[in-house]
C-alpha cells in the first residue's frame, strides 16, 4: 500500500521569502505525484503533478515541485511567497496496479498549513 508523509503540520514564511512544503512518499511501483491546495470552506484545487520526465515540475500560481526518486520526496516550492498563498496544502500519490486492472484513487498526506506573514 502507498503512503504519503507531510512532516510539518504548519509552515510559517515571511512574505517575499522562498517557501518549501515537504512531502515524502512510499509506494511499490512508479509513483504519480500531485499537489493540491485548499482554501477555507473551498474544495481542493489542483496545483501540479509529476508523471514522468523532468524532475522539476511547474504548476499554477508560480509553484513548482521537485521529484527526487532517491529520497522519495516531492517538495513543493515557490521562490517568493505571497500572503494569498496562505492555505492548506496536500501532497498525494497514485499508483496504477496492472494486475486485475483496478486503479486506486489518490492517497493524501495529512496536509500542511502554510501561513505567509506580511
Amino acid at each position, binding site marked *: 500500500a502507498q503512503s504519503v508523509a507531510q512532516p510539518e503540520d504548519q509552515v510559517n514564511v515571511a512574505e517575499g521569502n522562498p517557501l518549501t512544503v515537504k512531502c515524502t512518499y512510499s509506494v511499490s511501483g512508479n509513483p*504519480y505525484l*500531485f499537489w*493540491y491546495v485548499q482554501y477555507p470552506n*473551498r*474544495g*481542493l*484545487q*489542483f496545483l501540479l*503533478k509529476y*508523471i*514522468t520526465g523532468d524532475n522539476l515540475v511547474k504548476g499554477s500560481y508560480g509553484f513548482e515541485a521537485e521529484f527526487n526518486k532517491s529520497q522519495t520526496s516531492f517538495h513543493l516550492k515557490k521562490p517568493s511567497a505571497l500572503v494569498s498563498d496562505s492555505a492548506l496544502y*496536500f501532497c*498525494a500519490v*497514485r*499508483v*496504477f496496479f496492472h494486475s486485475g*486492472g*483496478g*486503479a*486506486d*484513487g*489518490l*492517497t*493524501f*498526506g*495529512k*496536509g500542511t498549513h502554510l501561513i505567509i506573514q506580511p
Partner: protein
Amino acid sequence: GAGVSQSPSNKVTEKGKDVELRCDPISGHTALYWYRQSLGQGLEFLIYFQGNSAPDKSGLPSDRFSAERTGGSVSTLTIQRTQQEDSAVYLCASSPHWDPAQDTQYFGPGTRLTVL
C-alpha cells in the same frame, strides 16, 4: 466552463436516517471519484467509477455505503442508517481519464454531512 458540482452543500440528518449525496462531474470526464474529509481521518479515498462501472468497492467504510453512476455522468453516494462517525465533508472529483498517466482530478466544493 462549469466545474464539478455537488449537492446539497450541507446536510444535517438524524442518526439512523438514510442520506443521498449527488455529484455532477465536468462534462466529458470519464472517471469520477468520491473521497471523505474528516478531522480525525484526513482525506480518504472511497470509490471511483470508470464510466458507469466501479471496479473496486473495498474503500467504502462499511456496507452501509453504496454508490452508483448512471449515463456516465451523475453519481450518487448513499449512506444508509447514518451514524455520528459518518459526519464529514464528502468530496467528489472527476478526471478526463482513469489511467493515472492521464489523470488529473478536479474536485467539487463538497457536501458537509452532520449526523446528530
